[in-house]
């Protein structure tokens, strides 16, 4: 059985599967860190522009993606400038009818999803996180009035807050700063989940070391939200069991059989 969803239902499915001794694979979401090292801001070039787009990926599909980069970790040296540019990028997001090709961010999938996101906007603020942009439901008026629209929202806070620890499944990113490489990895891994992650840096060694150190099944390096065929996909920790999309996925559905064949007509000679 393969299940994509959340932890309680995942456990329930494992429980049912255990009654029949059936294997399961689970993909239960995450709280994916998007890490921006100081050297990203080493130049105002195409790469810098790409990194800002990478930050803004939290709003892709209204944030309703298991791998939503819902935590942004920005190094102290360029924190203020990079974040200001990221806010400006977020301001330019166009919300509207999802069938309009000019729309970047549409409506949430359901009313309960909308209500849940709004409840997180509330608890985030009561925990002391600061809203840098957005933070409210949006009414676009006209025929879209009453639609389940949420403003793309950037929170600034601390990784211990619930908005840093739970998958909100909306266009909401929680931002915090880090000092150095060790601090970045420590914050990135301080989560129950481990599905996606990203590292942004101009330094190949930093990129490689971080990719190895982050406990997540997919670490995008200087990119985000790419899903090519045959790239193994799945989670560490509470994000689940098993890998999909790669050929190894087939192993979850196959048996290994050992045919042990003797070519000898002679008895073994033991008895």
């Amino acid at each position: 059985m393969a299940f994509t969803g959340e932890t309680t239902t995942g456990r329930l499915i494992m429980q049912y599967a255990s009654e029949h001794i059936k294997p399961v694979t689970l993909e239960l979401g995450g709280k994916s860190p998007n890490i921006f090292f100081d050297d990203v801001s080493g130049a105002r070039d195409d790469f810098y522009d790409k990194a800002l787009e990478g930050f803004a990926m939290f709003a892709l599909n209204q944030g309703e993606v298991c791998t939503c980069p819902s935590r942004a970790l920005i190094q102290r040296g360029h924190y203020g400038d990079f974040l200001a540019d990221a806010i400006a990028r977020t301001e330019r997001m166009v919300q509207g009818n999802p069938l309009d090709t000019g729309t970047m961010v549409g409506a949430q999938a359901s009313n309960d999803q909308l209500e849940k996101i709004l409840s997180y906007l509330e608890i985030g603020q009561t925990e002391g996180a600061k809203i840098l942009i957005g933070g409210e439901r949006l009414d676009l008026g006209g025929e879209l009035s009453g639609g389940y629209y949420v403003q793309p929202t950037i929170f600034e806070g601390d990784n211990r807050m619930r908005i840093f620890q739970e998958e909100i499944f909306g266009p909401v990113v929680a931002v915090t700063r880090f000092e150095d490489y060790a601090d970045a990895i420590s914050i990135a891994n301080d989560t129950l989940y481990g599905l996606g992650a990203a590292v942004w840096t101009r330094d190949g060694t930093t990129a490689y070391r971080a990719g190895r150190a982050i406990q997540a099944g997919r670490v995008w390096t200087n990119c985000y939200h790419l899903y090519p065929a045959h790239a193994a996909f799945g989670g560490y920790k509470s994000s689940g069991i098993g890998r999909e999309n790669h050929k190894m996925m087939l192993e979850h559905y196959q048996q290994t059989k050992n045919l042990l064949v003797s070519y000898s007509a002679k008895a073994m000679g033991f008895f």
Partner: protein
Amino acid sequence: MLPGTRPERNEPEPEWSEPEPGRSEPEGSEPERSAARPATGPARVAVTEAAAELLRALSAKHGPLMFHQSGGCCDGSSPMCYPDGEFRVGTSDVLLARLAIEGLAEPVTFWMGGEQFERWRHTHLTVDVVPGRGGGFSLEAPEGVRFLIRSRLLTDAEDAVLNH
């Protein structure tokens, strides 16, 4: 207010005992791994009147009920409501509350995974209900409504009783 330094895993948590077959606990016994407190003190979990009404309707159809708070993707971070005992709780789970619902003979238990609880324990939860369509097996889904958690920080007084 932040939860401060995260408590050690071996922090003395009121314990939890293996449920009896069918989870019929002896009269008056508390599950051991419980973070619930007597009804007279502050509670971790409350229920709105609308949610209580729905619980009464669900209980009439399904009998005694339980909640397990989910985490993760999609319908995650929502409370899942099941017939009591349908979801197997174990040593990794914490009992946050036995919700006394007017009109129901049995309290509705409210559970959460222990690791998740460590990251939620500084907040007070209210079970509410909104129009919606859940994607899991939670019992209210066919009714076109969805249980929802609303949160606030525990007050210092509540925190002193519940977390220390």
